[in-house]
């Protein structure tokens, strides 16, 4: 793929940097980065929908589906191959979201939020009451292998970390591409005016369906990566409280760029470590107050502080100007 833009180049440059971090920084920090890569992808799934004006309070569903797809493959068939598990996670997310999409695509706004929540709680109910799957305790995953190679105990963590970085960066680049594509544009348009979309000859519902599936697949991949990183899964992954955290991350970091939710996840992870230590019973008060402050004072999220093209508003214009610049004379 040619004509990479700044964000895409940034991600490609970030990959070796990310891997270097993993090898140089202390282990406990790397663990947090590692885990945030998985949850970061779920936050990205939330962000992609938010760009189209759709707020999902149930993205944990696909986080969980990815995790359980990987976990069950290990439990039932003894599978532990990194690539195979990711493929399974994608397949599971794809199938479920394609089917559920027919229901969800009929809804918008608060109904979309509530129904996505309801659907995720169905899985929560099923998993919590299923004794064979460890009910609320969940179960463990076997150590990850790579095309038949099982790394030794001493390096397995590092190998998994590096292996996790790669799909995360690929997903981020692909999602960025998606947001720049005609369908990504339709997403923006969807948020603003559906009647016009229909009158342009496009099905708004189909557009919602496509966005829903894409968000689901990314989140499933996040679920697989997270499950492998932690080596454990449980139904909490699809509790609405987990899903709401992803919404929080998207609000906090802003939806102006795909990098924002990834950074936001990491930031939150670190803050949580300290906050829980200092004031264990006040963590939610902090999160809730920050969220209120962001909504009121920084509606485009933290990303708008570091970005020159603030959030949604000037996004296209910016790019359009860049695209037409070589021609000169236009004003």
């Amino acid at each position, binding site marked *: 793929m040619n004509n990479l833009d700044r964000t895409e180049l940034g991600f490609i440059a970030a990959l070796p940097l990310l891997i270097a971090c993993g090898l140089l920084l202390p282990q406990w920090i790397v663990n947090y980065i590692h885990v945030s890569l998985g949850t970061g992808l779920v936050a990205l799934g939330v962000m992609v929908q938010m760009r189209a004006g759709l707020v999902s309070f149930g993205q944990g569903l696909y986080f969980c589906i990815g995790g359980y797809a990987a976990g069950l493959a290990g439990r039932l068939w003894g599978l532990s191959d990194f690539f195979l598990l990711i493929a399974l996670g994608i397949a599971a997310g794809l199938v479920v979201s394609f089917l559920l999409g027919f229901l969800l695509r009929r809804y918008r*706004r608060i109904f979309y939020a509530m129904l996505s929540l309801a659907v995720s709680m*169905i899985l*929560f*109910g099923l998993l919590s009451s299923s004794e064979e799957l460890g009910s609320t305790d969940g179960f463990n995953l076997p150590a990850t292998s790579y095309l038949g190679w099982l790394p030794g105990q001493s390096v397995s963590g590092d190998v998994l970390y590096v292996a996790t970085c790669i799909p995360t960066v690929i997903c981020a680049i692909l999602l960025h591409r998606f947001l720049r594509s005609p369908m990504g544009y339709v997403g923006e348009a969807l948020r603003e005016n559906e009647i016009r979309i229909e009158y342009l000859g496009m099905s708004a519902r189909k557009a919602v369906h496509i966005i829903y599936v894409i968000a689901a697949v990314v989140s499933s991949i996040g679920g697989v990566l997270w499950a492998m990183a932690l080596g454990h899964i449980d139904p909490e992954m699809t509790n609405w409280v987990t899903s709401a955290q992803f919404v929080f991350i998207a609000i906090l970091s802003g939806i102006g760029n795909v990098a924002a939710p990834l950074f936001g996840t990491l930031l939150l992870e670190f803050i949580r470590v300290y906050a829980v230590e200092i004031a264990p*019973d006040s963590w*939610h008060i902090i999160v809730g107050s920050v969220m209120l402050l962001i909504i009121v004072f920084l509606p485009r999220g933290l990303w708008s502080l570091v970005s020159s093209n603030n959030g949604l508003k000037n996004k296209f214009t910016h790019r359009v100007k860049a695209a037409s610049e070589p021609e000169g004379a236009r004003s």
Partner: protein
Amino acid sequence: MLPMLTAIAIIVDGLGFSAWLFLSSVGLTLIYGVMRILNIAHGGFYALGAYSAAWSIGLYSQTGSTIALTFLLIPVAALVAGVVSGLLIERGILRFMYGKDEILMVLVTYAIFLVLEDVTKLIWGTDSYVAYQPAFYFGSIDVLGIPYTVYRFIVIGVAAVVGAALWWALNYTRSGKLLMVVIEDREVSASLGINVTLFFTVTFVVGAVLGAFGGAVAAPEISVTPGIGAEIIVLAFAVIVIGGMGSVGGAMIGAIIVGFARAFSVHVYPPAELFSIYLVMAVVLAFRPYGLFALAEGRKI
């Protein structure tokens, strides 16, 4: 065919669940109907009500006085918890946000919900509270051999009374009629001299008290622990989505549907408890995408 005993159990439990669900969700639908706010913080009101009731009943019981008075403690605890928290939240936060996008308000109330969760923990700690005394005070009666606490039937009666009172207040009082005008068109009502702000504040506080009351009434029958707010909000959503958001009558029908679906699954196939609720919801939405009593929408172009 179901065995007779199971059928009876489903009916009584179904009514019990329905009553509890109605009390816990009617405030949510009321606030949505009037203010167009889908209030996730409702789960927080429920928890506050449950904790304050359980805590005060516990304190009172230690004095050794008659248990009968705990029946007074339940509504009083709900009233205090609901009025204080409702007023603080509406006057302190929400009133600055009126007119904002519905989905943004969901996020705002979610943030408030998070704060309430920890406030509850800071006040009452993370231990669980049990306040069983009122539940057993009247003893139990046998329905074809199955013992049920009288308390459960009282709750069913209370739910019916609350429903009837709301229905009467909305349709037959002057304030209720004015409220209907506010729901119809805020701007016109304001220009007619109706104090819209006051209606909003009162509605929100009433909704909060109802939420707290749902929790307070449930307190003697459950173990009050952190997380009950997050659990109830999910069920309350299902109830009001089925009934049609903003409709009090809808909340009653929704509560009955969800309550019986749950009772049925509890007695026939327990693992499907949560699943059955959403299955019913999916079926209803397949035929009525915005619930049984959905509010109408205007012309767009």
